[in-house]
């Protein structure tokens, strides 16, 4: 810092003419809502890494089963319980198809003269675990998509109508919602078991019945808060119809809340399916989902740990990444966190 003992001479200053013209000029380009959010998410390294990882998993779910050239349902009794073997890496001494049987290191591939490379090994019926894992991942992705669609369609609509209409309509809709939200998801699935066979359909129906309650509540709360704001009144005064108010004014302002909520229902829905399959009321054999694969692998966990560990890793990756992306989006959209 300069001190007062070396003053700056007056002739170094210049008088700036007072104008009001450039007060209105916006120095930076205006940001749209999505762009603004993107700038924020981009700073969150965990969310970006998660998004890339998740994208990889999604790609693998589509191309994975055809990469290994083995049918995920094809049984082959001559090639059961093989440990993983990957070409290239096998020279490093890991994943070379050897395993300890009774404390002795053995290579089942060499003993049985198997030429193929099963990247993730095979299960007790000789099915290729690599393609089964990715086929199972598809189930998780379907559940994720389903959860998102249900949230968006039923939950958002229910919340919008309930909050916007208010009065008697709101009252009745809230009472119905209260009753539905009192019924745990698991119990709906069990009730479904009585009339349907366990499988993807009963899980889907259960999710349609109960999956949207949280979203409906949040959206209704937000609508109640927003609908009395001046911009809605202004638009109404200008003659806007309800539809326009709902879809042009309210919905865009709700999009942050909707996206955050959807991102958080996705991991819990994926977990739900895996959980059901694990306890035996989800997908049934020979269908593969990550839950059923983990359940199968658990039976022989002591002897063939890879059968359980590989699908477990995949589901953990999916759940951790979706949670982290959800966190990142929440930090990006939540106005409270703005700095």
């Amino acid at each position, binding site marked *: 810092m300069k001190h007062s003992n070396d003053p700056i001479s007056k002739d170094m200053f210049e008088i700036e003419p007072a104008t009001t013209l450039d007060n209105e000029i916006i120095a930076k380009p205006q940001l749209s809502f999505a762009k603004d959010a993107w700038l924020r998410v981009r700073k969150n390294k965990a969310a970006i890494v998660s998004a890339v990882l998740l994208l990889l998993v999604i790609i693998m779910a589509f191309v994975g089963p055809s990469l290994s050239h083995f049918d995920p349902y094809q049984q082959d009794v001559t090639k059961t319980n093989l440990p993983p073997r990957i070409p290239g890496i096998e020279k490093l001494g890991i994943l070379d198809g050897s395993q300890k049987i009774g404390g002795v290191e053995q290579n089942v591939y060499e003993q049985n003269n198997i030429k193929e490379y099963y990247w993730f090994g095979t299960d007790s019926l000789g099915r290729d675990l690599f393609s089964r894992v990715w086929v199972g991942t598809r189930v998780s992705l379907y559940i994720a998509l389903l959860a998102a669609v249900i949230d968006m369609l039923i939950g958002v609509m229910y919340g919008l109508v309930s909050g916007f209409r208010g009065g008697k309509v709101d*009252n009745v809709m809230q009472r119905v919602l209260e*009753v539905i939200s*009192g019924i*745990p998801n*698991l119990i709906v699935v069990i009730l479904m078991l*009585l*009339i349907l066979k366990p499988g993807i359909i009963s899980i889907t129906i259960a999710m349609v019945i109960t999956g949207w309650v949280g979203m409906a509540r949040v959206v209704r709360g937000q609508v109640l808060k927003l609908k009395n704001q001046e911009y809605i009144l202004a638009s109404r005064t200008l003659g806007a119809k309800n539809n326009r108010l709902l879809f042009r004014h309210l919905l865009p302002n709700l999009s942050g809340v909707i996206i955050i909520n959807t991102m958080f229902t996705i*991991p819990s829905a994926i977990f739900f399916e895996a*959980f059901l399959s694990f306890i035996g009321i989800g997908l049934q054999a020979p269908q593969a989902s990550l839950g059923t694969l983990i359940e199968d692998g658990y039976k022989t966990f002591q002897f063939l740990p890879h059968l359980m560990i590989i699908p477990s890793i995949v589901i953990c990756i999916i*759940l951790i990444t979706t949670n982290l992306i959800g966190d990142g989006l929440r930090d990006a959209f939540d106005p409270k966190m703005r700095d």
Partner: protein
Amino acid sequence: MVKYVLQRIVYLIITLFVITSITFFLMKFLPGTPFQNEEKLTVEQKEILNEKYGLNKPLPVQYANYMTSVAKFDLGNSFQFDNQPVTGLLKNRIGPSLELGFQAMLVGTVIGIGLGLLAAMFQNTWIDYGSTFLAVLGKSIPSFVFAALLQYYIGVKLGWLPVAAWDGFSYSIMPTIALAIFPVATAARFMRTELIDVLSSDYITLAKAKGNSRMEVAFKHAIRNALIPLITVLGPMAVSLMTGSMVVEQIFAIPGIGEQFVKSITTNDFPIIMGTTIFFAVLLTVIILIVDILYGIIDPRIRLAGGSKK
């Protein structure tokens, strides 16, 4: 307040009524009869059986009978276990489940609050990142994966703790840990956000200005206010403990309600499945009701909002 509680109890009863009714009608529409060797029975024998179980009465009467017996906690008899009453089976198995659930809740919330506190006090340091990362892991890793890994590495490989079964405190340590990870994660995340909010409020600045130490401020002033909203997550925690207990009890072979339930699903023992379903529904709705009422007592703003709704 009384009005709010009464209103909530009415909804609770409606919810339970809906669940039991659905249960009854679904059971009615199941194909087949509950009698074994149906083809060998004569018409007279069938009539006697129908008479005995009240199956010859019109549907509304059967429905009324079923509802009254459920209200008296009579949930029918098991198919598998020699016609034992379901209520008795549940009673025998509730002990281990309650013990596990209680331990997991206690351990989970205490550790979770601690982690959340550390994260908030040392915000944006490695302590914060570490505890947040742990919380994400705890929230993401499915309980059955975690339980199986614990069992294999600590039970089988290291041999530190018994692998499975239920025979004293040491047998409950691993299942408790497996169940507690979700409460830990939820409590830690919640506590961190709440505390950061509270720590930036004026009265905390005042407390600091008065010369209190960091620890004093955190423990005397901040935690109390951050703890109140934590009550709201107890409901979802109870739900997760219930689902978690099924797999964890199955993996560690604990004779609890969850293990019984999973077993009944695989053997199609419908009376037990339905009885347990109703039991779980009652348990969960009552817990959520208690949580809401507690919250209303502690935080008057909720009470007002609840009371003004008609």
